[in-house]
């Protein structure tokens, strides 16, 4: 089975959406496309596991290499390892949930689903590419669909948010581009990730290139202080757009920071590790405290995304096996969780036409399914055991605690404290929205979730529970990939 299928299916869906004749056809075509993608991702997952348990210990599976621009050293080098498989699974889950949640979009439905599928194409391509040029191509591919999705179908200050998002992400990509070119020339005119990993790059060069790459990718993952695009961008986006932005797009940065910056430039990573830890700890705490001040449900989730994505970068910065594995798990877990949260907020907004917490109350009476899911996602956010958030955050903390220096211990404790703050804002917001007296009498007569929304929520909850209750299937897949990175990192002073 060729990993290119993961690119072919979204492309075919795009073409099929183009020739569909009415809105119903567009929706069902997209749904079938997303379902096929999910099935593909699961198939790859099972094949991956079988190949691993069958004894295939090579670090990259399903590897294929097609020449693209041989004179420049660019090839379509694709393949997956454990981390990539986890991210592909995440992408497919979020995409199908996004397609389902957007069922009732009436304005320019065809273009909406077209852009959504282009986004998923970009994400899949990013995760399977092992050539830096192709990786950058897919990273940039997503910029225009995001801009158009927010600008046309968004709400609030959508043009401003779309502009800010597009420009800041482009700025991050510009830094990544310079870093990639630096890697290209120091490693002998090749863009191939595997080949570059084998060459040794001098620590002085790494010191220059690593910050470019890490900050560039960090902009995507809301690295403090480049996180300013997140609140407006996520909140002004349409529901599926927010799900995709927070669920997948922010993980592009984390994956890039791990695979490209840390894996290829280990000396640089070690030199800058302390700064990364400081910035991510600040991001975690700042995100958490800023969330407490928010009155709009979407802004609450957006700032909490900054906080949770800080854990990803903190795990990477700690440079231990458990911490990095925890970072990967946090990427998957947070992706599912925040996608679900945005989906629920979208469902609530469609019915109550408000996102302000103080204007809503007692929704449990009229929307039991939606509020139950709201509780589940809230508890996942604050790390309740049994849900995926706990597993990921626990791994990051345990891994961080392995670093015994005073500085690392302080950073870990500071990050841990954010859980308390998370608990405060989650319980306050969700509690007052779901329980208590009904604030607006109209809310008492609203309809609960339709079949599409229920299906979307259930798919994501299954993912969250699967990781939360029995995480070892995911950790076993991810660990060999993390081992490769740790080996390249060499010894880290504990």
């Amino acid at each position, binding site marked *: 089975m060729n990993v290119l299928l993961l690119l072919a299916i979204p492309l075919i869906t795009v073409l099929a959406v183009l020739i569909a004749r009415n809105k119903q056809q567009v929706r069902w075509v997209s749904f079938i496309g997303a379902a096929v993608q999910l099935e593909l991702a699961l198939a790859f997952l099972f094949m991956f596991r079988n190949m691993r348990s069958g004894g295939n210990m090579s670090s990259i599976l399903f590897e294929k290499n097609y020449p*693209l*621009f*041989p*004179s*420049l050293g660019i090839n379509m080098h694709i393949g997956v390892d454990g981390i990539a498989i986890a991210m592909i699974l995440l992408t497919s889950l979020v995409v199908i949930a996004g397609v389902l949640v957007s069922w009732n979009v009436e304005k320019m439905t065809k273009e909406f689903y077209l852009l959504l599928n282009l986004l998923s194409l970009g994400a899949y391509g990013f995760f399977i590419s092992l050539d830096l*040029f192709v990786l*950058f*191509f*897919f990273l*940039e*591919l997503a*910029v*225009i669909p995001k*801009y*158009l999705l927010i*600008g*046309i179908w968004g709400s609030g200050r*959508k*043009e401003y948010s*779309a*502009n800010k998002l*597009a*420009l800041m992400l*482009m*700025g991050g990509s*510009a*830094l990544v*581009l*310079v870093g990639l*070119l*630096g890697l*290209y*020339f120091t490693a002998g005119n090749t863009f191939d990730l595997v080949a570059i990993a084998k060459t040794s790059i001098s620590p002085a060069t790494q010191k*220059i290139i690593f910050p470019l790459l890490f900050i560039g990718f960090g902009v995507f993952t809301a690295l403090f202080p480049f996180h300013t695009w997140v609140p407006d961008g996520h909140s002004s986006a349409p529901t599926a757009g927010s799900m995709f932005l927070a669920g997948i797009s922010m993980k592009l940065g984390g994956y890039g920071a791990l695979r490209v910056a840390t894996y290829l430039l280990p000396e640089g990573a070690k030199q800058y590790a302390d700064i990364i830890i400081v910035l991510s700890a600040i991001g975690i705490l700042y995100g958490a405290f800023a969330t407490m001040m928010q009155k709009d449900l979407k802004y609450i989730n957006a700032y909490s995304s900054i906080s949770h994505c800080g854990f990803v970068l903190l795990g990477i910065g700690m440079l231990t096996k458990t911490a990095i594995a925890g970072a990967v798990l946090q990427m998957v877990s947070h992706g599912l969780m925040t996608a679900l949260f945005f989906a629920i907020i979208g469902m609530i907004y469609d019915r109550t036409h408000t996102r302000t917490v103080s204007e809503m109350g007692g929704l449990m009476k009229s929307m039991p399914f939606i509020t139950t899911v709201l509780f589940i996602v809230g508890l996942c956010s604050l790390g309740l055991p049994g849900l995926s958030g706990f597993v990921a955050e626990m791994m990051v903390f345990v891994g961080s605690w392995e670093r015994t220096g005073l500085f690392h211990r302080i950073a870990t404790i500071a990050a841990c404290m954010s859980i308390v703050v998370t608990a405060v804002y989650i319980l306050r917001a969700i509690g007052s929205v779901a329980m208590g007296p009904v604030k607006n009498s109209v809310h008492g007569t609203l309809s609960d979730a339709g079949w599409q929304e229920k299906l979307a929520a259930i798919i994501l909850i299954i993912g969250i529970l699967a990781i939360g209750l029995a995480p070892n299937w995911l950790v076993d897949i991810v660990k060999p990939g993390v081992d490769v990175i740790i080996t390249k990192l060499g010894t880290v002073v504990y």
Partner: protein
Amino acid sequence: MNALFTIMKHELLLTLFLFVIFFFKLGKGMRNETMLSIVQVLLLVNFIAGFFFNTTGILFDGMYVSSDVTILEKNILNLGIYLISLVCSRWLNQSHHLPEFFVLMLAAQMGLFFMISSGNLLMFFLALELATIPVAAMANYDLEHKQSSEGAVKYILSSAFSSGILLFGISLIYGSTGTIRFELFATIGQVSTLQILAFIFLFAAFAFKLSIVPFHLWTADVYEGSPVATTSYLSIISKGATAFVFMTVLYKVFAPLMFVWNILIIILAIATMVIGNIFALRQNNIRRFLAFSSIAQVGFILVALVGANTDSVASIIYFVLVYLVSNLGAFGVASIIQSATNKDTIEDYKGMYQNNPFLSWVMALALFSLAGIPPVAGFFGKLFLIRAGASSAQYWFIIIAAINMMVALYYYLRVVRAIFMDKNSTPLQPIALTNTEKLGLIICSIGILITGLFSPIYDYIAKVVQQF
């Protein structure tokens, strides 16, 4: 005798078609539409015939040089004039002097071809004049508007001045080296200060034609005043050809002077990109906007020039091709809207998507390509340029180029936003496109979409350039 016809085939074909158009004009009075269709067929034949029966060689004792690279460059420019005749057909049909326009354009094109193939300074100067003067007449073609005449006068005066400076530089070079032949310059042993001075004068002439800052002041007014067909010709074909010649002259002829022009180009590239971007940010007229954006694009070509190896050559040729289809898409849409509704500010474009979806998507594709966003060809073009420039290992320079890409995205997105997102109570009415316009825009769109993803195109260019 045979060698003369096949080596100079492109120019001779242009001359032939020029006279054919003349004879058609002198015959019975033809309707504009018929004349235009005939011209389009002629230009298509010209483009296709450019690929067959090509011979490389040297003519007239070194004055005229034809190699695989020059043939490739001329074919790309032939595609350009064919597309201009397609997408600007609405304006051309309304013009009172249609055959003369094409006579002038083919004459200017001949000048550009001779410039690309020139082997000594005299031929180069002659060709430059042939490429400039007809375009001044073309710039004046909107005879009812005073702005057109203003643009034409500005253009002819500025180019005459720059030609004067060029001549002075040529005379200094002849005086200091004793030769006007290109291939003999590279063998200069010691470089004297007089030669550096002469080179600066030559450089100024090129910089004028390429609209490099600070020689760019004529660009916005001339582009705004001229009809869109002339603006497309000036900004795309003329600039593309000058970029080709500039490349050849710098790499082959003035190679000993690399220590002079390397740092000069770095500084001017930064200035061009920055000034082009800053001014494009504030433009409202779509033609001035495209003019300043083309200045910034030339800045990117300069980034690649710093690399000074065959990769730079390949990436510049590739970028000119990509730049051609992208800009022709954008100018084509602007021309159609201008001719149909007489509106050419970004304000008027607001809400265009409601009534004109095809035009909106073509414009969006063209703007994305100009901005350098995947998956369209502009991404590959810009990236290869920056890669070629980065081989000189000046990272701060590349960072500035990458940041300018980001700034450029902002003003391209302004137009996209106006078309797709802004509300307008009086959006442009639905414009019915003729078949030729649709054909032209579709060719541009296909070019934008596949030139990047279809890698054999770049590989072919890279292979040809190996013989540079």
